[in-house]
């Protein structure tokens, strides 16, 4: 149990670091979606299914979609940092 939680926390920290360090902006949006997905898995492992479903739907789905649409409207779709 502790190994699964440690692995998920490590994935979250690594993806959050990747958001800061990746040059491509679209890849940074995808990395933030990975953070939300790992958090949803952590909630599911901690036996909170409602919160896990909400986090998966909103964090991994809607929030990344919103950021990607905003990037497209700003014309930063293919720009490197």
């Amino acid at each position: 149990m502790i190994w699964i939680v440690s692995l998920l926390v490590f994935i979250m920290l690594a993806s959050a670091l990747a958001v800061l360090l990746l040059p491509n902006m679209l890849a940074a949006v995808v990395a933030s979606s990975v953070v939300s997905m790992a958090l949803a898995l952590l909630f599911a492992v901690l036996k909170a299914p409602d919160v896990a479903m909400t986090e998966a739907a909103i964090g991994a789905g809607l929030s990344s979609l919103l950021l990607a649409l905003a990037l497209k409207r700003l014309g930063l779709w293919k720009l490197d940092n």
Partner: protein
Amino acid sequence: MRNVSGLLFSGGLAFLLLVMVAQLPFGQPLMLVGQQILQVSPNEVGTANVVAAVLLAYRGIDTLGELAILFTAASGVGLILGHLYSANSGSNKKVDKSGFITLKGTELMVPLLLVVGFYIIFYGHVTPGGGFQGGVILAIAFFLPTLVRSDAHLDHQLINVIEGLAGAVFILIGLWAMLYHHAFLQPFFNSVFVKGHLGDLFSAGTLPLLYLALGLKVGAELAGLLSMIADFPELTGEQNK
């Protein structure tokens, strides 16, 4: 300089949070009312999902506040990004650049998303899920064709009507409970909305209706919000002059 001050502030915030967490006993629930809710809820409210009972029966006013927050956010985005849709139909037409896989995949996914979304909403009081989660999935199902195909546009009049009606139905069901001398937004039982057995679809009185209104409102709201952001004309350098 700005990075150092940012680091100091976040370090201070982390320190405060750790101090708060260190005061709490590890492994024991904090809230005393949670144990009582767990004992009383299956007989009193009748849902198999206790989280749904807390969200709608014991703390229904907070759910109404959450609806108000979502409505305010969507209205704010609509004020900033809304524009005359009739004037925009011809000028910024997207060329149908989506490939074959995207188009056919969307055609397969939209019915699946609708079924999953409505299933999560309808069974929200039995299995984990509920109005918010199902509503977000419904919003994606409504929004996805407008993103992929160039000839599909979201009917904003219909979306606004659905959103307004669903919000009004939520409040009206809450007021209806007051006619039976209950509190505002308390789920109640009469001959049509029976109490039922624990774990049935038709159980817990009017609580599934509240979840349905909630899910439709959230879905319509988020679909309209995403469509407004997606349809906004692309900012180029010349527009800043």
